[in-house]
């Protein structure tokens, strides 16, 4: 069953007098429980697709449904709580608020819920435990390595138990060792916790960690293949 349904989506930008087409008639399904890597050269529209799925941007035409909700027709007022409930997002960099500790950064999505302080505390400890950073709760981002920062960002992305975890080049700034740790963590989230993961990457190793790899070029899906688990 498709968790994400992208139907006949066009996306274009206006830059001065020039109109830049990113996608034309893109149609794609992301099944529930899948781990999908989206690859492609710069400017192919990978990050734009991720932003559209997260409701951060709107398609010029077409429809995007996530878990049955028509994201592309929601108002900004509807999108914010929807994102809080359904989307966990990890960026390549600048993920964490530097003035907050790892614990407080992970707590952010939970502040938007009705959970009590105690319930929030339990969830934060579990999330940081899953990413192996339960001993770094009181550390500020400047006191963490790049890999640890990304793992805290992943903990924040999963702490509210979202429907879908989206990652935009999560290993782009990491060394090989940290990169491997993050990818192993993502596989575990997908395999052990059945999280649906969509990752945008240039990194072949990152793509290898996924079960499905999609290649985008100039806004067109040119290849799709499964990777054995």
């Amino acid at each position, binding site marked *: 069953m498709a968790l994400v349904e992208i139907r006949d989506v066009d996306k274009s930008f206006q830059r001065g007098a020039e109109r830049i087409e990113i996608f034309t008639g893109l149609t794609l399904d992301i099944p529930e429980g899948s781990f999908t890597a989206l690859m492609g050269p710069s400017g192919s529209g990978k990050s734009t697709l991720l*932003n559209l799925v*997260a409701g*951060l*941007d709107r398609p010029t035409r077409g429809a995007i449904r996530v878990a049955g909700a028509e994201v592309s027709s929601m108002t*900004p*007022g509807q999108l*914010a*709580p*929807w*994102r*809080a*409930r359904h*989307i966990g*997002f990890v*960026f*390549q*960099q*600048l*993920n964490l*608020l*530097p*003035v*907050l500790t790892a614990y*407080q950064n992970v707590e*952010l*999505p939970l*502040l*938007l819920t009705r959970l009590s*302080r105690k319930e929030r505390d339990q969830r934060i400890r579990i999330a940081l435990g899953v990413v192996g950073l339960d001993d770094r709760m009181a550390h500020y981002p400047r006191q963490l390595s790049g890999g640890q920062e990304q793992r805290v960002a992943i903990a*924040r992305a999963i702490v509210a138990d979202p429907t879908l975890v989206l990652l935009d080049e999560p290993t782009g700034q990491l060394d090989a060792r940290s990169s491997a740790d993050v990818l192993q963590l993502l596989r575990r989230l997908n395999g052990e916790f059945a999280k649906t993961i969509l990752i945008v990457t240039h990194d072949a190793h990152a793509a290898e960690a996924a079960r499905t790899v999609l290649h985008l070029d100039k806004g067109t899906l040119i290849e799709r293949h499964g990777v054995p688990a």
Partner: protein
Amino acid sequence: MKFLHLVLANLRRHPLRTLLTTASVALALFLFASLRTVVTTLQAAAQFGSARRLVSTNATGIVFTLPLGYVNKLRTVPGVEAVTWANWFGGRYGDTKRFFAQFAVDPESYLEMYPEIALPEDQKQAFLRERSAAIIGRRLVDAFGWRLGQDVTIQGTIFPGDWTFTVRGIYTPTDPVINDDMLLFHHDYLEERLHNPGDAGWYVIRIHDANQAAAIAKTVDGQFRNSSAATKTGTEQAFNASFATMWGNVSLLMGTMGFAVVFAILLVTAKARMMSARERTAEVAVLKTIGFSDRTLFGLVMLETAAIALTGAVVGLGGAKILYRSTNFNAGGFLPGFDVTGATLALGAGVALFLLLASGLVPAIQAARLPVVQALRRVE
């Protein structure tokens, strides 16, 4: 309240900047309260006075005296209940530059005319009995360490020579507008030393019916119109107000200065808040991605500004209130009863609210309206 740590963390991001911004708001509100209090104190002084008291001065000007012989004629004017008189002395104590007012008064009738000048009965009797006795306000005791029974020598400037008085009483005004650092002594003593010139600086007249004030003033002035020293009689309130207007349009000046200070600080605060918001563009985008709504982000930025404005208001306005009250400040006797009023505090709170809205709205709206995709692209 669950967002409080987020607000506090953002305020701690640049502690020095937050401290300086808060301090500038506090200073602006302190100055605002101080300048406003000058205005309210002058207004209170101008409004002080019993409706049943008239003041009669020389029509040529207050620096010219009136004959002491007028007192008997004044007492016969219909509607007049009591009359007293006083002279400005204008002396200096030692080599101190501290100013305080001295008045030669007719002791019995003056204290009867001004029940607001309260002193113990035994001290009052001691003052009345002794020609060279004086009574002093409580503040002079604090300023010079004078005590009962002490001889105090004042150098006369208008009436030259050394004038020695024995302190026989210490008064406490029951109305804060009455100066508590005056020295009052016997008019007879002044007359005696000056070989009885028979002059009074001005007369104070108590009347039976306040509604008759205008008519009685007219009668008094009519009585002396063709004499060598014509009088100008009016209510005590008008007399006090004329002193206030001697300062010029102080209210306008102080008010303008107060609002100029607030406006300058508004620009400083607004700039600091804008800088703070600009530095956090990426973070606001991340928060929006997490699911923070435009309204929540607007509220968070406004809360930060509110924390600065509120702290500044409490420190600035509270500081002014406490400082002036604890030091019993009266600007060297020129502004008796100088105290930051509740109305000034309320107005200051309004100014703080204005500062909050004017300096916080723009960054808050910018944070709320920030397009996430463009913001992320800008920082990548």
